[in-house]
C-alpha cells in the first residue's frame, strides 16, 4: 500500500510557532492521522491519559477509541497485533512506554515485523512505527533510561531513526508513518518538554529526507557525530571548543539504520578526526559501526583513531550515578583533546 501524500493545502494548522519536541511529535502524529484514516495509534495509556509523557495528548478525544487504542499491558501483544493490523492494511503507530520495556516485544519485532516483507518476497508490507522514548538523564528507576537502538539496527528488515529537535520530530514522525518499512522511532525523552530543543516548526516547509544525516554546525578542526539526546551534548561541546579556537563540525545522524555516512566521510576527509557520541554502551553498537566504516572509507584521511564517548558497558546505573555514565560536555571535549593531541 502506497503511503498517501500529505496535501499541504488541507492543513488545519497554518503556523504553529515554537514547539517543544514533545508538542512537535504530538502535532506530527495528529497531522498524519488527519491525512490517512488508516493511521492508528496504540499503546499503554496513550488514550485518555495521552501517554505517560503526553505525546498522544488529545488524540483519542479527537480521533476516537478505534484510532487511538489504550491497549492491554503487554508489549508483545502491542507489536504482535499491530503486525496483524498492518497486514489488514492499517498503519499502526505503537508506543512503547519506556525503552527498557521493549524487550517483551522483541520476539515479535525480530521474528515478524522485521522478516515478514522478505518472507513473503515483498507481497506483504509492514508499515509499522514503533515509538520508543529512550535515553537517560531523568533520574528514573531501573529500565527507564536505556538506549537499546543497536539491537534493532543490527536486525535486517528494520529501519531505525532518532530525532534530536522539534523540527525533526514533527517531520520525521510523519515520514516514518508514510514509510512502507517498519521504523523504530527513538525519541530523546529527556528533551520532550525542555526548552533546549524547542524550535520554530513551519508546516509549510519542505522537510529533509528521513534517512539522511545532517550537518548541524560546520567546522574544520574535528568532527563530532551524535544522535538523539547526544546531539545537544555535541552542540554544546562545539560551542565550548570555539573558545579554545577549535572549530568542530557537528553531524546529527538522524537515521541509525540505514546509516547515512556520506556527510560523515566528507567531514572526516577534511578534519581527519572523529569523535562519536552516544548514550548507549559501546560494545557492538552504532558507534562501533561508525568507527568501522569510517576507518574503511577514510583510512588515509584519519589523523587520529576514531574515538567514542558513550555510556559504559554496564547495566544503566542508579539515578544518582547516571551523570557519570552519560556522555557530557567534559568527556566529549576530553576526547576531542585526545584526538587533536594524537
Amino acid at each position: 500500500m502506497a503511503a498517501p501524500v500529505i496535501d499541504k493545502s488541507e492543513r488545519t494548522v497554518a503556523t504553529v510557532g515554537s514547539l517543544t519536541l514533545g508538542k512537535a511529535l504530538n502535532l506530527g502524529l495528529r497531522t498524519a492521522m488527519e491525512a490517512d484514516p488508516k493511521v492508528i495509534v496504540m499503546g499503554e495509556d496513550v488514550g485518555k491519559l495521552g501517554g505517560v509523557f503526553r505525546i498522544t495528548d488529545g488524540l483519542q478525544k479527537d480521533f476516537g477509541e478505534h484510532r487511538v487504542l489504550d491497549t492491554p499491558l503487554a508489549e508483545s501483544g502491542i507489536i504482535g497485533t499491530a503486525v496483524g493490523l498492518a497486514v489488514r492494511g492499517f498503519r499502526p503507530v505503537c508506543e512503547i512506554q519506556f525503552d527498557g520495556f521493549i524487550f517483551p516485544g522483541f520476539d515479535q519485532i525480530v521474528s515478524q515485523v522485521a522478516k515478514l516483507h522478505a518472507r513473503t518476497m515483498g507481497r506483504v508490507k509492514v508499515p509499522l512505527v514503533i515509538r520508543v522514548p529512550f535515553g537517560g538523564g531523568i533520574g528514573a528507576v531501573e529500565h527507564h533510561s536505556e538506549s537499546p537502538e543497536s539491537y534493532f539496527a543490527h536486525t535486517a528488515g528494520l529501519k531505525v531513526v532518532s530525532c534530536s529537535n522539534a523540527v525533526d520530530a514533527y517531520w520525521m514522525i510523519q515520514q516514518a508513518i508514510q514509510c512502507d518499512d517498519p521504523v523504530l522511532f527513538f525519541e530523546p525523552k529527556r528533551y520532550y518538554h525542555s526548552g533546549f530543543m524547542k524550535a520554530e516548526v513551519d508546516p509549510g516547509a519542505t522537510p529533509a529526507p528521513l534517512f539522511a544525516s545532517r550537518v548541524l554546525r560546520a567546522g574544520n578542526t574535528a568532527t563530532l557525530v551524535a544522535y538523539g539526546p547526544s546531539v545537544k551534548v555535541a552542540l554544546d561541546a562545539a560551542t565550548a571548543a570555539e573558545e579554545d579556537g577549535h572549530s568542530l563540525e557537528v553531524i546529527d545522524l538522524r537515521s541509525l539504520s540505514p546509516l547515512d555516512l556520506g556527510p560523515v566521510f566528507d567531514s572526516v576527509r577534511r578534519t581527519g578526526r572523529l569523535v562519536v557520541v552516544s548514550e548507549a554502551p559501546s560494545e557492538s553498537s552504532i558507534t562501533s559501526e561508525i568507527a568501522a566504516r569510517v576507518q574503511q572509507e577514510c583510512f588515509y584521511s584519519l589523523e587520529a583513531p576514531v574515538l567514542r564517548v558513550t555510556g559504559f558497558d554496564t547495566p544503566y546505573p542508579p539515578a544518582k550515578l547516571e551523570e557519570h555514565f552519560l556522555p557530557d560536555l567534559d568527556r566529549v571535549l576530553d576526547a576531542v583533546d585526545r584526538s587533536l593531541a594524537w
Partner: protein
Amino acid sequence: MSSPEQWTHPEPREGPAATAAAPTSEQVIAGLRATSEGGPELVQLLTPEGERVENPEFDQYVADVTAQDLRSLYRDMVLVRRADREGNALQRQGQLGIWVPLLGQEAAQIGAGRAMRPTDMAFPSYREHGVAWCRGIDPKDLLGIFRGTDHGSWDSTEKRFHPYTIVIGNQVLNAAGYAMGQRFEGKVGDDDGEATMVFFGDGATSQGDVHEGFVWAAVYDAPLVFFCQNNQWAISEPTERQSRLPLYQRARGYGFPGIRVDGNDVLATLAVTRWALDQCRHGNGPVLIEAFTYRMDAHTTTDDPTRYRHSDELEAWKLKDPIERVRVNLVRHGDADQDFFDSVQADADALAADLREFCFNMPQPPTEQMFDHVYAEASPFLDAQRDEFLAYHAEFAGGEH
C-alpha cells in the same frame, strides 16, 4: 482430566519422574488414557466406527452436508494425506531438507479449512498443509519452505492464508490484530461478516503470545477463532507438561467460549468450526476450539518418537483414524462404491507423482535472491553490499578458480 495425579504432579522417586526417554509403566498407561479419551464434553458426530451420532446442538451446522459433500471431504483428506506421505518420502530421499507431517490430523484441518469462507482469513502454524489445501494452495507451493528455496511462495493476501509461522505462537497475536482490523472496519455483525481463524498446537498454549492473543481478542471482541490442534505431543512433551486443565477450558478464564471437538471427526470439526466462525462473524467472538487429535507421525522428519512414546499409544489411535471412519460411513450407507474409492486413490497417486516431479525439478534459487525484499524502500547500504557481492561472484564467471 483423564490423567492421574502422578502424571500431572510427578513425585520425586528414583530419578526424575517423567524421564521422556524411559517412561514408567504408570506413565505409559496415563499417557494412553489421556490421549485416547477426549472426555465427556467431546463433540463427536461420526464415531471411529463410522456411525453418525446425533447432536442436538451441532447437527444444524452440517444439516446441508450431502453424501456428495461427505465424499468430497473424504477425497480432500485422502489427497492431503497422500501429499503428506510424499513429502515425507521426498525428505527421506534427500529432496527436502525437512518435512513436517500432518498424518492423523487430516480431519481437524480439512474440517476447519472447509468451514471457512473465501472472505475469512487464516493464520497457520507450520503443519497446516490440510488447511492450505482448503485455501486453494497447491502442495507444490509448500515445498520451497522444506527444500530451502523460499520461505513460502503463495500470495497470502489473495489466498487469505498467512505465511507459515515457525516461531511458536507468534501468529496468534498477528491473527488477533487482523481480526481487530476486521472489527474496526465494520466487517463484523451479520451473516456476511468476516472472521479470522488462527491455528496452533497444544505446546503453543504455553506461550505468552497465545495468552496475550486470548486477552487482546477478548477485550476487543475480535472475530477470531482460536483453533488449537491438540495432537497430544509437543515434540517429546505431552500435553500434561503444558496444562493441568483440558485446554478448551482455558477460554473461560478469558471470558469467551471454549469447546473440545473430536479432531479426528471431519464432520464434527466442520460443524463446530462453522458454529465458531458464525459466532465471530455476528460479533460474538472470539471462540476457542480444541481439536482433540493425534500426531500419528514424528514431530518432523528429524524427530524420533520411539524415544518418548510407546507404540501402544499409536496403535490405539490408529483405531480412531480420521479417514477410515468416513469411508466406513460412506460404504455403510451406500453413498460410495469401489469405483469412487479407486478414483480417489488414483487422483491421490497422480497428485503425489506430480508433486514428486515438481520437487525434483525445482530450480536452485538465484543467489542474489537473499538481498531481495529485505526492505520495501531501498536501503543504500544493503544495495552496496549486494553489488559488492555480485561483483565478487562475477570474478568467477566463465572459468575455474
